[in-house]
Structure formats: structure tokens, C-alpha cells
């Protein structure tokens, strides 16, 4: 079929390790060029709107940070899971439970008039996400149930639960029957970092979590175990690394971080509990984790890129009338090109005789 064949390299090609993300971006731009032409829009205008406009105002830049914060928080946790070969796909549900728990605390203890309330809300969010992640953990450890399917099913259950609660006990009694909770008090709200923007403390949490996870992976026995499993599951088994502990810890960490992200979202930019609290952060974070090559620093960059696609697509919707779903399309395309780039890293293309 082809007149060339692929030979595995003995060592990954370092140069392509650096160049392939750039090539992936270039490939995405080329596909985007044809896509915009097909839609009858000027590619130049579209790309300026997508990539340049968000970066040319303080508001645009802070909006990227606002959208990147939950993606970073979730993706860093997922990277721990994925490195340990634990396929947690339930971050969207864990995010939702975090938001529900944080909102419940904010509403029930609304009479606490100092920032202890905020702290309680954030902790509740972490607990909520961790509880939701512990379900696939229990099922995997006790019954060997596939965590991909269980964690994913729980995303749908979480949305049902959210819909039920914002129309039930968490609904605002004075809210004219809208499916929304009462707005949170000042002491249950994340303070804004720059006045006039939506930039909130969650961004700081995201950076702190990245540093913490990086340190943990590098310095602790747990981190060492995770890296061994990532390199060779059979070697980890041989070395007596207890896989049950790894499954539990990685799911609790990632669930807790996703829960914190959910809490930050309702306590910060949204300010109340609503039926729609995520444009798919839990799924975008899966891509961000892989595009960032499961490395904490790579994840910050890839999350910023995913966030740029969200903000840029919002602008494309306003200015050129293109559907908002364009963000998801671009997020996927970047990922596919990056995977295709692995070919250059791990294989050598040779002409067959």
C-alpha cells in the first residue's frame, strides 16, 4: 500500500519532542484555515478573532485565566491518575459534586459572617469531589469494575442530581421559581483579584495545586510508585507496589481537585448554583492532560490553550456568528495532531525496498 515503512527508534527523538507540539498547532491552523473558508468566513479575520483578540485586552487575558483555572486544577489531578494507568473520566461529575457541596454549605451556613464560611465551602467542594471519585475507586478495588465506564456513568448521574437539587431543596425560595439557588453571601464568595474582571482566587489555587502535585510526584514514595506504574505496570507489580493504594490515592486526589474546581466556579464567577455550571471543563481537562504530556508544566500551557479556544470561540460567536461548539472541535484537532506527531518521536520513516 505504501512505499515506506516505519521502524521503531531505540530512543525517542528529542528534537521532535519539542517540535511536535508546534507542528500540531500548525496543523490545527491549516485545518482551521480550510474550515473557515468552507464556512465562507475570511480565515484572517477568524484567526485574529480566535487567537489575537482574546490576548489584546486585559479582560480577554483574565477571561482566559478564569477558564484555564478549572482546567488546570482538574487536569493536574487527572495526570496523576493517567500516569498510574487509572482512567478517571469522571472529572465532570466530580466537578459538579464539588459545586453542589460548596453551594449547600454556602446556603446552609449563610449566617456565618466571616471568611471562615468561604474556607468551609472550599473544603466541602473538595470533599464532594472526593466522595464522587471514591465510588469508582471502591468498585474497582473491590469488584474490578472498569473505572472508565463507572466514572463516566456518574457524570450523568451528577447532572441529574444537580438538576433535581436546583429545582428542589437548593432552589431560591425568592427566585420566582427559576432553577437557581439564592446568590451566595459576600463571605461565601471568592474575592476578585483585579477589580473589574472576573479573575478570582481559583487561579492561585490552580498554580499551587500544580506545584504541590509536581513536588509530590518527584519527592514522595507515592509519586515514585505512580511513575514506576507509568513506565512499566509489570515492573511495578514485581516491585510489590500496592496497586489498590495507588488507585485510591490517585482517584481521591483527582476527585478532590475537580471538586475544588467546581467549588471555585460557583463561589467565584457564577456566584450561585445553576443547572449549567460547566462548558465541559471535565472533558477539556482530559485533552489538556494528554496534550501537556501528563507533565504539570506542560498542563499549564495546554490548559491555557484550551481556555484560549473557549474565549476565542465566544468572540467568534459574537463577531462572526459561528457556533460556540467550535471550541471543542479545535480542542480535539490539536489533540489528534499531537498524537500523530508521536509518529515522528518514536518511529523512523524508512523507504522499503
Amino acid at each position: 500500500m505504501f512505499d515506506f515503512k516505519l521502524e521503531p527508534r531505540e530512543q525517542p527523538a528529542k528534537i521532535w519532542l519539542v517540535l511536535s507540539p508546534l507542528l500540531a498547532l500548525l496543523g490545527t491552523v491549516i485545518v482551521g484555515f480550510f474550515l473557515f473558508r468552507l464556512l465562507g468566513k475570511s480565515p484572517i479575520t477568524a484567526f485574529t478573532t480566535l487567537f489575537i483578540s482574546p490576548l489584546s485586552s486585559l479582560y480577554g487575558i483574565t477571561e482566559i485565566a478564569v477558564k484555564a483555572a478549572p482546567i488546570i486544577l482538574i487536569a493536574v489531578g487527572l495526570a496523576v491518575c493517567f500516569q498510574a494507568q487509572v482512567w478517571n473520566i469522571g472529572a465532570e461529575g466530580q466537578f459538579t459534586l464539588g459545586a453542589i457541596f460548596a453551594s449547600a454549605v454556602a446556603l446552609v451556613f449563610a449566617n456565618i459572617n466571616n471568611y471562615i464560611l468561604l474556607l468551609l465551602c472550599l473544603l466541602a467542594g473538595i470533599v464532594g469531589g472526593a466522595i464522587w471519585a471514591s465510588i469508582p475507586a471502591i468498585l474497582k478495588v473491590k469488584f474490578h469494575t472498569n473505572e472508565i465506564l463507572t466514572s463516566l456513568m456518574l457524570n450523568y448521574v451528577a447532572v441529574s442530581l444537580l438538576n433535581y437539587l436546583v429545582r428542589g431543596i437548593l432552589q431560591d425560595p425568592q427566585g420566582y421559581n427559576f432553577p437557581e439557588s439564592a446568590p451566595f453571601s459576600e463571605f461565601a464568595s471568592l474575592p476578585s483579584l483585579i477589580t473589574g474582571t472576573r479573575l478570582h482566587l481559583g487561579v492561585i489555587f490552580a498554580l499551587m495545586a500544580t506545584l504541590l502535585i509536581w513536588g509530590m510526584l518527584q519527592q514522595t514514595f507515592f509519586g515514585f510508585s505512580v511513575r514506576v506504574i507509568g513506565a512499566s505496570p509489570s515492573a511495578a507489580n514485581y516491585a510489590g507496589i500496592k496497586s489498590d493504594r495507588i488507585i485510591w490515592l490517585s482517584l481521591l486526589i483527582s476527585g478532590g481537585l475537580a471538586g475544588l474546581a467546581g467549588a471555585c466556579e460557583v463561589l467565584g464567577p457564577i456566584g450561585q448554583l445553576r443547572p449549567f455550571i460547566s462548558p465541559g471543563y471535565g472533558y477539556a481537562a482530559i485533552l489538556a492532560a494528554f496534550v501537556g504530556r501528563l507533565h504539570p508544566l506542560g498542563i499549564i500551557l495546554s490548559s491555557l490553550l484550551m481556555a484560549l479556544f473557549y474565549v476565542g470561540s465566544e468572540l467568534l460567536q459574537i463577531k462572526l456568528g459561528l457556533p460556540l461548539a467550535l471550541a471543542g472541535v479545535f480542542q480535539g484537532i490539536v489533540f489528534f495532531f499531537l498524537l500523530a506527531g508521536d509518529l515522528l518521536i518514536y518511529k523512523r520513516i524508512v523507504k522499503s525496498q
Partner: protein
Amino acid sequence: MIFTNILNDTLRAATPLILAALGELVAEKSGVLNLGVEGMMLVGAASGFIVASVTDNIYLGLLIALVAGIAIAFIHAVLTITISTNQVATGLALSIFGSGLSAFIGADYVGQIITGLQPFSIPILESIPVIGKAFFQQDILVYLSIILVFLVAWFLQKTRSGLILRSVGESTTAAHALGLPINRVRYLAVLFGGAMAGLAGAYLSLVYTPFWAENMTAGRGWIAIALVVFATWKPMRILLGAYLFGGVSAIQLILQGLGVDISPYLLSSLPYLATILVLTIISRDATRIQLVAPASLGKPLQKL
């Protein structure tokens, strides 16, 4: 009458699950795990609906959905088979991409209504009391899905090509030693999976609820993947599992119809909870699952 309606809705709700699960089963039998079923279904649902509403031809819509499913599956095939990328990661990305792509192409069609594929009656059989109207007054895809299950079962067990497909999935090294065209077999299996998923998606947007809405598959692609495990990779058992889940979906509607005082939002989580429960019961015996799963599932071919 209520019983007839439950049966009728069970069969219809099960049909997209049967199609998607059957396609995934064939792909997995060849050793390729494709977690992109949800994404392929969504693209099938959106493209099928668009074509059917523009051309006013349901069958053309179904055909295009099938082709679109193949096109999306092709991405997975190139990446996982030719480039040997991680099958789990690639499949997940395919689902996310499919969700975005379908929402994008379908954006202008949200809220449009078409006349869906109509059921037709099989004479004489449809007059059997209670079950007649449920079983023999269905649309053509309900019957087709059942026929396909038998065809795939026959293909895998009784034909030479089926044997080759299974041996590629059981042991890539042995199949390679025998000189079997591993990559070609896997490509065909993955593309068949895409065709079935595309058709399954179009069943939802053209027959089951004839409209298009973002993410309208609502996790059915994932339930289909769970069904393959439930069926322990045996085609005939997919029928059993799909009707079980179809029944759970139908129960929701029945309970709501009877005015049972449970929030519809809580009821809508029943199929997902049922999936978790059934998977857990099936998976308890880990060694059994390992024995029945295709041995090379998820493992790329390392040519030396």
C-alpha cells in the same frame, strides 16, 4: 395496553444500543478498543438529521450517518493502528471531538422537526394479542438490528474471515507469524464499528426522537461499550443486555406516566445506575473477564 407500550418502547430504546454495541464488539474482537462510540454516534445523529431534513429523505440520512461514522472511526484507525497511539486516550479524545463536531455542524438545526422513520406492520403477526403490536409493528431498523446480530454471530463463528478476525484479536504475534494482514483486518473492524455507531446515532435523531439536540445520545455510546463487557464479547448476549437496558429506559416513561411521585431528574439517572450495577456484578470475577476478553485487546502490534 400499557404492557404493549412498555414492550414497544423497550425494543425501540434497545435498537441504537444493539447497533453500537455490535460494532464495538467487532472492533474489540480484532483487538482494538474504541472508546469513541459516543462521539461517532453523535456525528452520525447530527449528519443524518441534517441530510434528512435538507433532502427530505430519511434513508439518505441514515446512509450519510453510516458514512460519517466510518469517517470518524477512520481517525481512530489511523492513530491507533498505523501510529500505535494509546487506544484509551485516542478513543476518549474521539468522543470529545465528536461531541464538539456534532454540536458545531448541527448548530443551525437545533429545534427543527422532521417526520421520522415510520413503523410498518407485518400482516397477521401484528394481530397477535398484546405482543403483536409490540413486536411486529416496528420500523425497519428494529428488525435489521436483530438480523445483524445473527449475521455477526454467524460471521465470527462460522466463516474463515471471522476466524482470522478473532485470531488477530487473540494473539497479534501468532497472527503475525501466520502472515495474516493484521492492520488491514483491524482497519476493517474499526470502520465497521464506526458504521454501526453512525447508524445507531441516526436511529436516535431520525426515528426514536426525530429531532437534533446537542449531546442527544446522553451516554448511550458508553452504555453500548458496557454492553460488550456485559455480553462477554458474545453477539447474541448483546440482544439480551440491550433489551434489559431498553426496559430500564422504558420504565422511566411508564413511572412518569403512572404519576409516581419521583422527580423525573432522578428517574433519568436510572439507566446509568443500572449500567454501574450490572457491570459490577459481571466484573466481580476478574479472572473470568480476563479469560473471555480478546487477549490482545488494547495492545498495538509491535512489528520487529
